[in-house]
């Protein structure tokens, strides 16, 4: 059976060039960049180059890139590190109500320590109004953190505008760009970002590798204290393998980005059009055009996401869902709730995240396989009114 991976948000395969770049660091280049001797030095040089490649991807300067263990660490560090460093200035954070768990729960942890939080609402497309940011700012505000694009619903936020508002009032601005960096153009200057989180797997780099961009001059406390790796900002022996892989992936993403986007958008738009045409009572979640090039998020009424996902999995189609059963938290996506979608409807969430290797025939397959799966499950659903009251399907 051909595997159709449309769950790139969860994991994308490494590019072959990335694997090739990593290979020497599995064998002969095993040094620790902290070592003074030649074994360490060759690795130090590699890390310097890696930093440059990741910096180039987002138009940053080399020394503004700090390697981390992924988007979650970057997000936790940005929030906790800025709050810690800003205690004398204030204790108020502004964020949105559709952030990733790694922002949402880091902020909850800060709230327990007395930090005050404004969570901005979103419109029905999941998008923040920059004017709300302006209104929320107080003299005690130490950070604005709004994600660049939402991984679950695909909507892209007006980050440049939000960043401009924060910059005018000299408030540091962080954006979680895990869903966008390496995927669509991300430029820390254009976005007015002071801190920006990214994660390697979004652009076909290894899982568990990421970076935080920290604009020169921004005061941030370390999350990991210890040795003087990463300019004293992030201690710990570096995950050299991950960094090498991420940087190679970043280098390639910069080159291929335009053609990847041009490839993805027509596939995305076919699914957005053809799924609701084939199945009644299916709705698109998120903004129709202001969205990630590979993101198709829909809700299918009267059925629950995991059951659809399992049938699709058996047919070789790999996707995700924001339903409660699938979430390890057993709660329906807070993102959809924030957009005004009710919890019952949100259970029918299906999330297709396309990648560079998806093709038109993959879309054909989804459009062929999904409708009978949905029908079978609707026939079993006590919520589905249209089914003949006494019909059984066994």
């Amino acid at each position: 059976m051909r595997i159709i991976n449309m769950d790139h948000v969860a994991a994308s395969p490494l590019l072959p060039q990335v694997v090739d770049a990593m290979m020497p660091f599995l064998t002969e280049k095993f040094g620790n960049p902290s070592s003074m001797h030649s074994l360490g030095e060759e690795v130090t040089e590699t890390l310097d180059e890696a930093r440059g490649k990741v910096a180039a991807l987002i138009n940053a300067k080399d020394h503004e890139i700090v390697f981390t263990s992924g988007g979650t660490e970057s997000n936790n560090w940005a929030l906790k590190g800025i709050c810690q460093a800003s205690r004398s200035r204030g204790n108020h954070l502004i964020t949105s109500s559709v952030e990733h768990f790694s922002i949402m729960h880091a902020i909850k942890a800060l709230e327990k320590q007395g930090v005050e939080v404004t969570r901005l609402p979103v419109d029905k497309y999941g998008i923040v109004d920059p004017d709300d940011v302006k209104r929320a700012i107080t003299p005690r505000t130490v950070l604005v953190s709004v994600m660049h694009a939402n991984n679950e619903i695909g909507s892209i936020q007006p980050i440049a505008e939000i960043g401009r508002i924060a910059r005018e009032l000299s408030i540091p601005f962080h954006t979680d760009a895990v869903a966008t960096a390496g995927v669509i153009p991300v430029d820390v200057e254009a976005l007015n970002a002071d801190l920006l989180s990214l994660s390697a797997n979004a652009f076909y780099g290894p899982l568990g590798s990421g970076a935080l961009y920290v604009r020169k001059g921004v005061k941030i406390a370390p999350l990991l204290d210890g040795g003087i790796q990463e300019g004293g900002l992030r201690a710990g022996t570096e995950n050299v393998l991950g960094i090498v892989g991420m940087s190679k992936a970043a280098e390639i993403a910069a080159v291929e980005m335009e053609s990847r986007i041009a490839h993805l958008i027509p596939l995305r738009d076919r699914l957005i059009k053809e799924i609701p045409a084939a199945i009644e009572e299916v709705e698109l979640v998120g903004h129709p055009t202001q969205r990630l090039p590979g993101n198709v998020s829909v809700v299918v009424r009267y059925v629950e996401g995991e059951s659809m996902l399992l049938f699709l999995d058996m047919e070789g189609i790999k996707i995700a869902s924001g339903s409660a059963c699938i979430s390890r938290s057993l709660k329906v996506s807070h993102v959809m709730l924030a957009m005004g979608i009710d919890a019952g409807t949100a259970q029918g969430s299906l999330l297709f995240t396309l990648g560079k290797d998806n093709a038109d025939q993959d879309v054909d397959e989804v459009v062929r396989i999904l409708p009978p799966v949905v029908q079978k499950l609707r026939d079993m659903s006590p919520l589905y009114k249209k089914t003949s009251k006494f019909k059984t399907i066994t």
Partner: protein
Amino acid sequence: MYSDIVMEHFKNPRNVGEIPDADGVGEVGNPACGDIMAFYIKVNGNILEDVKFKTFGCGAAIAVSSMVSEMAIGKTLEEAMQITNNSVIEALNGLPKKKHHCSNLGADALHRAIEDFRSKQQGRQMEKPVDGPEVCSCPVCDVNDPEEAPYCNTACGHSSPK
């Protein structure tokens, strides 16, 4: 994740449907938690002559419903009331821990249908059942998590303090 038996019941659920002139109906769950199960029973004497269900929920919920219906058909009401979460899980050759709450719903819905039947027999209206679990289970240690945390705050081995 799921055992072969679970997958078999999920793929080919037994006894799906409704019974138009059911002797008892039981429904549990709510869409917010992701599962709703409705059980319909036909009683002959003291015997469950027919059991059907409709389920909105995850793979486990569907398999559990199917298994409960199979286990119940032909049993006496007393025997059917003995069907427990654990016996269903056992019959399914196990369920992932985080899915254990789904199996509770299956037995509960059946028991409610039987209670509904008994109430009707006694000419009483069964009191409107409280809606299923108002709080969803902790995926980590399988206790109810009353709070907004994404993981269990209380009974797991490692617990994260408030």
